């Protein structure tokens, strides 16, 4: 049998493991102690921890120290210790580990980990970074109506990419802190891949809305798809940054997706029913090679618009009857 102690951080994370193959240990600041702790609030000989040789129960005894010993926040001179009890000596916290209790089962190694190995190749990440730079330059180019100079635009695009880099860097730092491994290359690959998918979706949406006259349901489908891609991006970032169960990862990614999507949606819905002198319509036009929809003739278009007149009349009629009811 052995006494096992864990040194805890302020946030209850295990910083160090100590295992003593002895039935009694002395904890303190003195050099002859079994466990020596550099904490000015700990006495030279602070606490004795003993294990009963028969029933293996663990007990402790404070050595009349200046600051005393707290067990689960209670100041006690001596007593029994259970597994998971936390001892506080000075400012240091130690957890007593119950060696009789089985540890939790091992997490199964994810197949995903293997299949996503290619994301961690720096070659891939550099290629994706460059490809994204080119893509954003091309986008900027098609959007410009003045003479375009690549070298004028380069600093602006790189600045934007630097801003975007905050995302993978944040995850890499968290990975480094909690997992001792940053996996920054994979994080960058995920970011650029996600942005590629977003842009592809944007192009697809343009194509669909142009050729199908911007149907009303499209915006919701679009929103769902964007939210899914965002979810996947967050999920993968978490996957590389932390070891956690799938259930927890799903939960955290869903929450983060909602936190990003909900404000965007509610901001865009805000005031959409307010009065405006500007009509809301879709102005996207695409060059002839992307035009798949056969054109209707002028008469059909104008006759079809008759429904707009009746819709407006009905809308006003229902509004004024609602007004009357409210007045009554």
């Amino acid at each position: 049998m052995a006494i096992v102690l864990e040194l805890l951080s302020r946030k209850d994370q295990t910083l160090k493991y100590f295992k003593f193959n002895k039935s009694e240990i002395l904890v303190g600041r003195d050099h002859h102690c079994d466990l020596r702790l550099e904490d000015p609030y700990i006495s030279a000989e602070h606490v004795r921890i003993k294990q009963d040789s028969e029933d293996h129960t663990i007990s402790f005894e404070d050595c009349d120290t200046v600051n005393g010993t707290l067990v689960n926040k209670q100041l006690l001179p001596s007593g029994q210790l259970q597994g998971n009890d936390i001892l506080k000596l000075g400012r240091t916290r130690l957890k007593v580990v119950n060696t009789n209790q089985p540890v939790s089962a091992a997490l199964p190694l994810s197949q995903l980990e293997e299949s996503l190995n290619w994301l961690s190749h720096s070659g891939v990440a550099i290629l994706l970074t460059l490809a994204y730079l080119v893509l954003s330059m091309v986008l900027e180019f098609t959007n410009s109506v003045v003479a375009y100079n690549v070298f004028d635009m380069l600093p602006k695009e790189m600045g934007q990419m630097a801003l975007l880099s905050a995302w993978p860097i944040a995850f890499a730092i968290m990975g480094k802190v909690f997992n001792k491994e940053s996996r920054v290359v994979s994080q960058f690959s995920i970011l650029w891949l996600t942005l590629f998918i977003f842009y592809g979706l944007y192009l697809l949406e343009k194509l669909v809305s142009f050729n199908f006259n911007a149907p009303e349901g499209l915006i919701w489908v679009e929103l769902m798809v964007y939210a899914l891609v965002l979810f996947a991006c967050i999920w993968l970032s978490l996957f590389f940054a932390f070891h956690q169960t799938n259930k927890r990862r799903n939960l955290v990614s869903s929450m983060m997706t909602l936190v990003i999507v909900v404000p965007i949606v509610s901001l865009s819905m805000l005031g959409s029913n307010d009065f405006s002198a500007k009509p809301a319509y879709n102005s996207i036009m695409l060059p002839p090679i992307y035009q798949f929809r056969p054109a209707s003739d002028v008469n059909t278009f104008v006759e079809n618009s008759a429904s707009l007149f009746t819709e407006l009349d009905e809308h006003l009629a229902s509004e004024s009857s609602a007004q009357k009811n409210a007045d009554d």
Partner: protein
Amino acid sequence: MRYLFFALALYSVMGFAQQTAQNLFSHYQSALYQIRIIELGSGNKSSIGSGFQINDSGVLVTNYHVVSEYVYFPEKYRIEYLAADGTVGELSLVNIDVVNDLALVQVQSDNKSTDFFSLSAQLPEQGSSIYSLGNPHDLGMIVVPGTFNGIKKNSFYQRIHFTGSINPGMSGGPVVNPEGEVVGVNVATAGNQIGFLVPLTKIRALISMNDFTPISANEYKRVIATQLMDNQQRLFERLEHEEWKLNELGGAKIPTLTGPLLSCWGDSNSADQEALYLSVENRCSLDEEIFLHGGLRTGGIEIEFEWLESDEFGAHRFYDFFSGSISGASAGNHAGKNDVSNYQCKQDIVANNHDVKTKSILCLRAYKEFPHLYDVLYIGATLNHESQGLISHFTLAGVSQGSAMRFTKQFVGAIAWQ
């Protein structure tokens, strides 16, 4: 000697004008009124105008826009007059003509003045002296001598062009010939010495179709609706019967009106050396609108075309730019949320008989108080070419479904390629 003669002639003309003005003023003072719109809450005047008496039963003519607040909110305002002798009294609304900006009001007092203006038998000749009477900026009644310069061209809503200054507050005052007979009513100004008057015929028409029985307050909106409906009917009949011809704009042919009904302006960016594209614009519009109240105008028409082309852009860049150029179109007339609904739009890809394929967007909003009248906005852009195209756009204010649909068909159907 010649100079002296010229100077004498000038002096005599001025002297004559001065005399007429003095005579007119002293003679007709008692038939001139200041009209005040009194806000009931504060009991003070919220706007002023002028008016003149046209018969011995105390009926006055003024502008519709002078009394528009009362017409729209009869429960919040009342109309009051201030006569030349300083007496103040109530006025009741008899009838209105929103299209020509005229209104008839009647003095609600027993001692009505018996002086009144008579209407001239015909309009004077161009260049004749005429005199505008009114009370500018609440400064008291004045006479402004000026010149009759005929009926303004480019106008569907007829106006006399008066060279002389008309100022706020003079609206609704009479304009008379040297004999003191009314030839028009002050209505608007376009800056320095350019004034506009409602012509005689419109006043006569309003008076002749009335037996001066007042319309009741809850009928005002219905009367306006009928007048607007009839007016748009006349306007669109005239538009359809006018001669349209195809004019070149860039690589396209656009329908343009040959007559003077609309006034047109053009513009292009060809002087801009740095521009990577060519933009040529053609805009036509009806010069006047119908004033209904402070935040609502209607009866206007705007037609705009813009040709865009670029040798530099290539298809993708051009269409990005082209899409941006048709976004953000806005209503052509002022209207608030109590007046009209929000726009609703329909769009499609449409090809006409001239092989012009356009992305066409038609948007409408309905008038809340005037059933079956709409503001219509159309914007279309051609899709036939890789890096050139025509944007066609119009707004129609206060039109019926029939007029709107006929006009749209004609408009979209007429565009062609060169």
